[in-house]
């Protein structure tokens, strides 16, 4: 135990003395939340919208008021004919138009040069029009569950957690271990009576601690700054994040057994680990729409299971029993990867 203790102290020195890296690790979640929350947001606000009303009755007027009142649409002056609408579209002055026929049928036109945006616009407008007491559009009554305001934050907060934990746990651990190989201290440790398992454990401890700080930062910012609700248990979310962090640590260890230089470790963690988190976890692109090969790959990306489970707990308020599927897959990943990489780690020595 004393051995492990002196080794963990040493790892803390390494991290605390590299204050620049430490600052980056602690500030990164804040920057990411700000970026996704306010800068690269896919949320739509104040879309210039034209209304062409042929019905002239109070129900339509109320609907138009509600559109105007919502933060999503900004009404564009008076429009008198369908030709005007098309002209405004071509000039790029509006991205959405609502046309009400004399019989109160509603038609929505959206600028689909940006397809995702157009889809969202139609969804927002539909929700508002349906709730205004007009006849439901196309006879379908749409209700958006769990996230009625279609806030992007509900989606990207779990995504950022998935991204950061991989980055810190896998990349930093693999770089930390490979650095010892590069400088030659690893040889000395291996010849010492130090249990190789302790080396790994000591390396992982400080990064696990930093991850905890990051998880807290993200959860607090998302709750109190972005207004993402916490429907389920906080403890369960933190538990999930720790489980996922363990998967990432094992991946980092595995990478460290495969490469010889810190740059290679960084590159592999960056490309082989980070890219799937961004592309294949369902964070940005829906997995259901991918070709089958990518769908299969997505299923072995730990982030996919983590992000799904965190969303379920945070947004839908599911309990541990209801996400047992994701929990058991992540647990299996930890056990499998830990056994495999510790074995590899030992053999390589």
């Amino acid at each position, binding site marked *: 135990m*004393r*051995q492990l*203790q*002196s*080794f963990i*102290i*040493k790892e803390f*020195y*390494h991290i605390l*003395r*590299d204050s620049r890296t430490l600052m980056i690790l602690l500030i990164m979640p804040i920057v990411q939340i700000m970026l996704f929350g306010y800068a690269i947001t896919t949320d739509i606000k104040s879309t210039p919208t034209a209304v062409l009303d042929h019905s002239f009755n109070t129900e339509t007027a109320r609907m138009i008021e509600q559109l105007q009142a919502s933060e999503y649409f900004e009404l564009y002056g008076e429009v008198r004919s369908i030709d005007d609408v098309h002209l405004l579209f071509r000039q790029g002055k509006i991205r959405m138009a609502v046309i009400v026929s004399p019989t109160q049928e509603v038609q929505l036109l959206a600028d689909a040069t940006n397809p995702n945006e157009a889809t969202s616009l139609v969804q927002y407008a539909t929700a508002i029009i349906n709730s205004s007491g007009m006849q439901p559009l196309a006879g379908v009554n749409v209700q958006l569950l769990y996230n009625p305001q279609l806030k992007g934050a509900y989606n990207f907060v779990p995504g950022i957690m998935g991204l950061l934990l991989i980055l810190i746990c896998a990349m930093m651990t693999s770089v930390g271990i490979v650095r010892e190989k590069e*400088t*030659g*201290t690893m*040889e*000395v*440790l*291996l*010849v*010492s*009576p*130090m249990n190789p398992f302790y080396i790994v454990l000591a390396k992982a401890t400080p990064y696990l601690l930093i991850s905890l700080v990051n998880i807290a930062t993200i959860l607090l910012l998302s709750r109190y700054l972005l207004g993402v609700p916490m429907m389920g248990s906080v403890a369960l979310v933190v538990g999930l994040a720790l489980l996922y962090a363990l998967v990432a640590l094992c991946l980092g260890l595995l990478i460290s057994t495969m490469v010889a230089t810190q740059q290679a470790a960084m590159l592999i963690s960056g490309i082989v680990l980070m890219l799937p988190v961004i592309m294949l976890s369902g964070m940005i692109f829906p997995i259901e729409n991918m070709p089958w090969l990518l769908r299969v790959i997505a299923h072995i990306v730990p982030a996919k299971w983590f992000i799904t489970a965190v969303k379920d707990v945070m947004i839908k308020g599911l309990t541990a029993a209801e996400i047992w599927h994701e929990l058991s897959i992540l647990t299996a990943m930890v056990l499998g990867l830990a056994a495999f990489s510790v074995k590899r780690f030992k053999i390589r*020595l």
Partner: protein
Amino acid sequence: MNNVIETNQLTKRFGSFTAVNSISFSVGRGEIFGFLGANGAGKTTAMRMLCGLSVPTSGTARVAGFNVYNEQEKIKKSIGYMSQKFSLYADLRVWENIRLFGGIYGIHGKRLTEKTDELLDILDLRGERNTMVASLPLGWKQKLAFSVAIIHEPAIVFLDEPTGGVDPATRRQFWELIYQASARGITAFVTTHYMDEAEYCNRVSVMVDGKIEALDAPLALRQKYGAANMNEVFHGLARKAQRSDE
């Protein structure tokens, strides 16, 4: 127990390649043993087996009285190790490095404090206690690394090209530390590229293609091969090698 290393027909094969081919030798307590050989001759593999990092294919070996097949953990407690690659942590202070390796070898508390003071006194590094190792000159670093490698008074210290890249004056000082350790009964098992250093050893072995081609005191080897110095002895033997450099 007079011999701290005893090997008998120790062999290591990787597939069809015999890296170490049936070597037998013994090294006595407090002896300074030079382990020479060109790159690829099998030195590193032999040394790894003796350190308990690699299991032999056949043959026997005992290090500090322990069997290399099943007592690796005991061997690791009885040996020290230092390599050409600098083996301390550059971003830790001098005393922090000493405390770390003391901790790894089970030295704590008062004994560690005493040991640290003693070590810094011998190296004349008292004033550098709180210096980051990164800012020490290379020669001092190597001397510190050696002292840390024997902090637990091991039976044997393995030195893998310990003086690589160090200037001749510092190399001499470094060898004085080896002599002091040897006088305390610590055996030094040294590989080196510098043939002048081979002359400092009590006995020297020369490995060629996985076998020990010669083993004796430097003076005896020079006489046997009619050479003026160890350099000629070494190159005369190494020229026979069939294997190319790794």
